[in-house]
């Protein structure tokens, strides 16, 4: 965008309504590094990115950081988008990549600094969930933390984001059989760990009865 110095400069600057732009139009604008495109991409896709990151990481603060990193990367590397009509998948591929990196570095941080998983309060963020639900969620996230990054991502995308095996395979650049193996591995590990935690099982049963 050029900057003008004049007495009445606005008349010849073309305005646009970003909300009317199609995803393809938006992708092309991102590729051309037009400034409005970043805000519009954020408006359109940030809720989806944040929701996935919340569920994968179990932490709103970390999810915020991930979303910012995703959109920064998307804007910086938009020119590598080969098919402007597939902007959503393009963004999702960055989500998966950044989340994987975040999960791995979180694991390293925990090993090095003995830090603890985020509290469920952080994820629930003041939601009116009861104490038991918060406790359950915290313990479930602690179990998810024990999975490796790939298995955890596959499990969450499949179970909470309702993605198909094929979609996960395409997004994570894995074969379908690898996704199935990861899914099966994550489920059986989680079942095992839940069964080995009588407190957690009892909590779940109580919750199920009260619902």
């Amino acid at each position: 965008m050029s900057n003008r110095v004049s007495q009445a400069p606005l008349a010849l600057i073309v305005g646009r309504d970003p909300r009317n732009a199609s995803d393809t139009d938006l992708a092309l604008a991102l590729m051309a590094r037009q400034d409005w495109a970043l805000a519009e991409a954020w408006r359109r896709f940030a809720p989806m990115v944040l929701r996935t990151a919340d569920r994968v990481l179990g932490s709103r603060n970390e999810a915020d950081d991930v979303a910012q990193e995703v959109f920064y990367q998307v804007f910086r590397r938009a020119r590598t988008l080969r098919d402007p009509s597939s902007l959503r998948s393009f963004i999702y591929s960055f989500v998966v990549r950044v989340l994987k990196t975040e999960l791995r570095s979180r694991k390293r941080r925990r090993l090095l600094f003995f830090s603890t998983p985020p509290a469920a309060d952080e994820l629930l963020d003041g939601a009116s969930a009861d104490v038991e639900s918060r406790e359950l969620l915290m313990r479930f996230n602690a179990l998810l933390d024990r999975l490796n990054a790939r298995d955890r991502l596959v499990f969450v995308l499949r179970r909470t984001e309702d993605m198909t095996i094929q979609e996960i395979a395409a997004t994570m650049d894995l074969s379908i059989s690898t996704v199935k193996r990861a899914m099966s591995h994550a489920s059986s590990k989680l079942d095992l760990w839940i069964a080995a935690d009588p407190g957690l099982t009892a909590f779940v049963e109580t919750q199920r009865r009260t619902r």
Partner: protein
Amino acid sequence: MKRPADERPDTKALAALVELQRDATKPRSAAELDRGLAAVRARVAADRLRRPILLPALAVAAAVVLVAAAAPRLWRFVRAPSAAVVVQKIEGGSLLEGGYLAQSGRGGVAVTFSEGTRVQLAPGTRGWLRELRRDGAALSIENGAASFQVTPDPARRWSVEAGPFLVTVKGTVFDVDWDPTAERFDLTLRRGRVEVTGPVVGGGISLRAGQHLAIRLPLAETVITEIANERPAPPEEKPATGAAAVPVPPGRAAVKRSVARAAPEAAARAKQADVRGWQAWLAAGQWDRILADAEQAGLTATLEKASSDDLFALADVARYRHRADLARAALLAERRRFPSSPRALDAIFLLGRVAEVGDGTARATALYDEYLARAPDGPYAGEALGRKMILANDQNDHAQARAIARQYLLRFPSGSYATAARALTREP
């Protein structure tokens, strides 16, 4: 969710925990989303400030940088102020933990610093004192207007964050206004120089005394205008039609007054019949004021009598406010009443933009074709060709889109649609 036959079902406990996690995720509020976007913008803006360095030149450049960097650092070290800047006096409020400037009355907060700098937050403005250093201070404006009178000192550096924008200051007098809801940033520089960085402004803008910078993020517009010297607003600035001025929120009053002084010439022209001086209001961001003025005078009469400048201003604000019918009517009036003016040609292109929203792709494309035929080297030729390309692609007419893309690249290899055109020409 359908599961493949070979996918094992979850146990009851695992299914319950998954459901709990799914339900626990709450969407972000608008304010949280705004904060996230501001953070991304700040990163992108910071990125733009970094220039790519070619590897072969790296060694030479590094040596030059080291030598160049040493001198001012040494100079700053020698000249560094002996004492940190401290807050000397706060009027109309207090400084809370975290640096928040809380207002106690209705007159705004004024902060005076030890070396003489004075900052005045307008009533209702939310601001923070972020940092006090030996060589200056950092403040931020979350919402509203503030005036700064920074004591000149080459050894000190002040910075003001307003939304995603960063104003770097030496000795100077200026007003800042940030409206996060409308994503509008205004800076009026009365004395000295400032540098503004942030989204839209690319590598940063240096302003000199007497300039006003207006950035409208949703429109991706950056506009610099000259302002007149300090003096009371002339009465001629009132609309010729006698319309009441749109009330200015008290928090923005200081800035709006200075912006209103932006175009004394326009105000003088407004004395003449049928010239309303709307260009000045447009430059000051007073869109609704223009619409109110036009409606009070009667839209039909306005379209028949307004000057070419005013019609264009009306068309612009109508587009910004999504009043496509009014924008179209103003542009058509421009064409009909001033057929031989260059703006009549511009109107064809802008009618195309309006048509994209309401009339459909075919009409928009026809208007772009007409513009390109009548003004092949006009100021909007690149835009018209680029829009045609996008529209063709949106209509899945990929062959046509590619043909236009090739034509575009021949004519505008570094135009704003060049990247998109290259992407289209690469496709099979």
